[in-house]
């Protein structure tokens, strides 16, 4: 996984509440068995005027001129500014994959859905929760100033504007460390293999009906 330390980048708006993962990446693209290449289909139904199909070349498709990500001023954005309950709905990890593949490394919103929030950290994306008023202020600034950029510092847990304004945010320590170092969760967990085995032995003695059921188990 890519690490995340400090990101300085162009900001793009997603100005609506309850953006669900079906909107972030519509279901037809879930048929892929790969984990990359979802970027061109990010927000597919809003971004294009036709119906997208998996495996199709998106460069030839008609763009929706009203959709902000299609505007010249937001090309190359790496920070997405969003509204409340971003990422609700389906647990599909294709949503953060699509955001990451498109180029977003940070999403700022007043609140996120739990599963999506969690999935972001597994994919090198930092979800930042800021108070509603702060998000509103950033939206206003973003609309006024073309080329609006923000600096997001995970170590310091700060979002900094060009004018030197600073918004602190919280993030739990474990997720922060993994993201800062770009650690592979599985590798970290397997360091506790002995503890897992020990738990399993005790649990099996205590609840034998949970084992040897779907199939006979060794050990």
């Amino acid at each position, binding site marked *: 996984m890519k690490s995340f330390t400090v990101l300085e980048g162009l900001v793009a708006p997603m100005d609506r509440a309850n953006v669900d993962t079906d909107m972030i990446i519509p279901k037809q693209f879930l048929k892929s068995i790969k984990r990359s290449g979802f970027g061109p289909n990010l927000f597919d139904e809003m971004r294009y005027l036709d119906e997208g199909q998996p495996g199709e070349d998106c460069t030839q498709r008609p763009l929706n001129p009203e959709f902000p990500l299609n505007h010249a001023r937001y090309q190359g954005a790496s920070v997405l500014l969003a509204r409340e309950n971003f990422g609700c709905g389906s647990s599909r990890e294709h949503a953060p994959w699509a955001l990451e593949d498109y180029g977003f490394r940070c999403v700022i919103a007043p*609140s996120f859905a739990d599963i999506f929030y969690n999935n972001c950290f597994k994919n090198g994306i930092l979800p930042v929760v800021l108070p509603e008023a702060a998000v509103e202020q950033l939206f206003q600034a973003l609309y006024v100033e073309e080329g609006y950029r923000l600096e997001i510092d995970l170590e310091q847990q700060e979002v900094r504007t060009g004018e030197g304004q600073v918004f602190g945010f919280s993030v739990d320590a474990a997720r922060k460390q993994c993201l800062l170092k770009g650690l592979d969760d599985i590798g970290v967990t397997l360091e506790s293999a002995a503890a897992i085995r020990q738990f399993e032995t005790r649990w099996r003695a205590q609840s034998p009906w949970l084992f040897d059921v779907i199939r006979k188990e060794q050990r």
Partner: protein
Amino acid sequence: MAGLTLYDKLWRNHLVDQREDGSALIYIDRHLIHEVTSPQAFEGLRLAGRRPWRLGANLAVPDHNVPTSREERAGGIAGILDQVSRLQVQTLDDNCRDFDIEEIPINDVRQGIVHVVGPEQGATLPGMTVVCGDSHTSTHGALGALAHGIGTSEVEHVLATQCLIQQKMKNLLIQVDGQLQRGVTSKDVALAIIGQIGTAGGTGYAIEFAGEVIRDMSMEGRMTLCNMSIEAGARMGMIAVDQTTLEYVEGRTFAPSGALWDAACAAWADLHSDADAVFDQTITFRGEDIMPQVTWGNSPEMVLPVNGIIPDPEAMENATQRSATIRALHYMGLKPGMAITDIQLDRVFIGSCTNSRIEDLRAAAEVVRGRQVASTLKQALVVPGSGQVKAQAEAEGLHEIFLAAGMEWREPGCSMCLAMNADKLGSGEHCASTSNRNFEGRQGIGGRTHLVSPAMAAAAAIAGHFVDVRTLQEHSA
């Protein structure tokens, strides 16, 4: 010391390691797998040269992509017409074979929607931790299990380590007292709760549903309710184990029997919140106040009783809410002031992991019996949640009632719930659906979904528009 909630107990029982940074390693008893969210996880294992930690903890079944028409199903995987879908189902099959994981294949009588199959097979048991790469895994909490959806990275993590890294949630008690009116079902309870607390109301919480209405509910009803927890923002919803739970579990394929059954029951007797348990928040409802519900917008919280009137955004003070309402009315093609019962329907879908169990089909059949689907309807689909539900329904003759009324009787799968197979809405079409999400495009691009209970969907199929199912039930009584 204060008592523990059900969630606290399940958490404690599965805690492998509490870390200083506040995260915890939680042991996973059952991992359910389907074709959409698993290929990249298996690929990850392969790339890292890892094997599954405990094969016997996993059970796989294809559901999202499988076709539901008999002709297309007859050819098995090779017969799936959409080649991208076929590849995904084939990939699940291949991965299960390569990694030696138990799979219920496409045309096995036990095949069905993973959240219907798990409890039905006894693969989900009280006191378990259950995960699946699907947000409606919350369904399994109805059995007194700690069950929630995970992303694909976590699917890989569970396969490789039998654990998840978790942060403990807060406790939310949703208490539904009193009794439900006749014709009001657990789906209506779920929608009424979401209507009040909103789709983010449960974010950060584990919900426990309790109260007289829940105690009186069947297991099927409880599963419908827990299924919709995620629509209220909570990753998990759960219900204490009681006699209803035990009666449901006993005798299922993977459930314990004999002396093990007795030992399990003794352990499960503790699976309820202590009388002095402390919840971070408690919300109370009265069963008598809940009417049959219908959603009108593109979020499950945009819901009204069937006698309701479409709201006027101009009367809303909150700007975000106003713009969301304007957007939803536009997408749904509805006008403020219109009665819910005036919404004309094009299709009806009875199915999905929310409402495709035998009790749901019985409720729908009871309304449909001896009646005809409205001539204005293009299609009314009934899709059982599993092969076993289908067989049971056929043994009871329910399929004949549906067919005689002009409805279609299909093979089990997710079907029109998310339209990954051929079952979908056309643009602009209104659908009365027993599924769980009314998001834009969920059932097909431009499709307009209204979430309802199976009885309400059946009544809507007969009338061609929404009606209070109780008027039909009175008629037939």
